[in-house]
């Protein structure tokens, strides 16, 4: 792969600063879904984006937001393409992204255990910390929550239900 030029770096930074439409506390860069920006010709740019989940409906809003930001930066021709491999993983969420999720009241995903088989759900026995009171005594209410990427849990200590960004 060719090294990013200065312009590509700048456009990458701009596209990466777009907030996630579903979780506006995170930028696309922190979420880890921005794969690269290629300047094909002056004023003509391709942005490579990867979905969190195959059916994630937010990808269309993300694409529109990126196009708008780059248009505003003087790039007339922007095409956003979706790439599937390598597949996105919650390990692609940056440390800053994880901190912001917790602050927003969503328990961040746990890092994948290197010893567990890749791709499988993380064993539920690992504790998930309550983002409100910090207790590790929490229980699973449902494996699927407000969006495909989250599970619904409840804190046994403070009784608050909360979303958990589940490991993928």
């Amino acid at each position: 792969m060719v090294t990013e030029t200065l312009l590509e770096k700048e456009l990458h930074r701009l596209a990466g600063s777009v907030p996630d439409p579903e979780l506006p506390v995170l930028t696309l860069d922190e979420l880890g879904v921005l794969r690269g920006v290629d300047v094909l010709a002056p004023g003509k740019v391709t942005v490579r984006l990867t979905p969190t989940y195959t059916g994630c409906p937010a990808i269309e809003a993300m694409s529109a937001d990126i196009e708008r930001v780059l248009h505003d930066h003087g790039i007339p021709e922007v095409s956003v393409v979706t790439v599937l491999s390598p597949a996105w993983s919650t390990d692609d969420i940056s440390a800053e992204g994880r901190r912001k999720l917790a602050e927003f009241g969503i328990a961040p995903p746990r890092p994948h255990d290197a010893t567990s088989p890749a791709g499988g759900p993380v064993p539920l026995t690992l504790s998930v910390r309550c983002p409100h009171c910090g207790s590790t005594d929490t229980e699973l209410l449902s494996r699927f929550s407000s969006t495909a990427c989250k599970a619904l849990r409840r804190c046994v200590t403070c009784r608050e239900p909360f979303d958990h960004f589940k490991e993928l």
Partner: protein
Amino acid sequence: MSAALALGDDALVLSHRLGEWAGHAPVLEEEVALANIALDLLGQARILLSLAGDEDELAYLREERAFRNVQLVEQPNGDFAHTIARQLYFSAYQRLLYEQLASGEGAFAGLAAKAVKEVAYHQDHAEHWTLRLGDGTDESHDRMQRAVDGLWRFTGELFEPVEGVDIDWQALRSGWLESVPAVLERATLTLPTGPQSGAWTAGAGRQGIHTEPFGRMIAEMQHLHRSHPGASW
């Protein structure tokens, strides 16, 4: 790309069936769970059908006999146990299928590597419910047993090789026959005794022959697009 059509139709049709639970599921959490699983499948279907042609035309303008999905996924939702049994059978199959495709080099490898992680959650969901219902009350046990028995004859079709899907089908079948019966046993259910293939079984979905409820399902799925061609909002 008949292979993309077969795998894409499986995902599309099951997605639509699961979507029918919206507004009807026993509890809110399950409604959300089934809708999320449906959304994952719809995303897979869109990518697969786009490999075969125009996704909207394929989904909304084909006649019943042009669909290549297995008959298992078109079976009506029935009671909650029936939906879970269908999920148990299909997610075990789809996970084994995607695992093999992901480790290959073919056109489906990228999608399969991504989707297999989603399907792992679908299978986990189905297995947990099978255990709860099978090892639950007398009523839930009986209903779960009826469901796994009733859908058993549709499972043989899952292992019929699809042209263009370059995997070890024998390994897929033996993997399925290890995982599904183990869950049924833990759920105190009896492994259905009927045949999976042969005279008294079903399965010609891959050839375009479908069961009666499928016609009604696609009528509902397609009517808006057919009544208002090209409509957008």
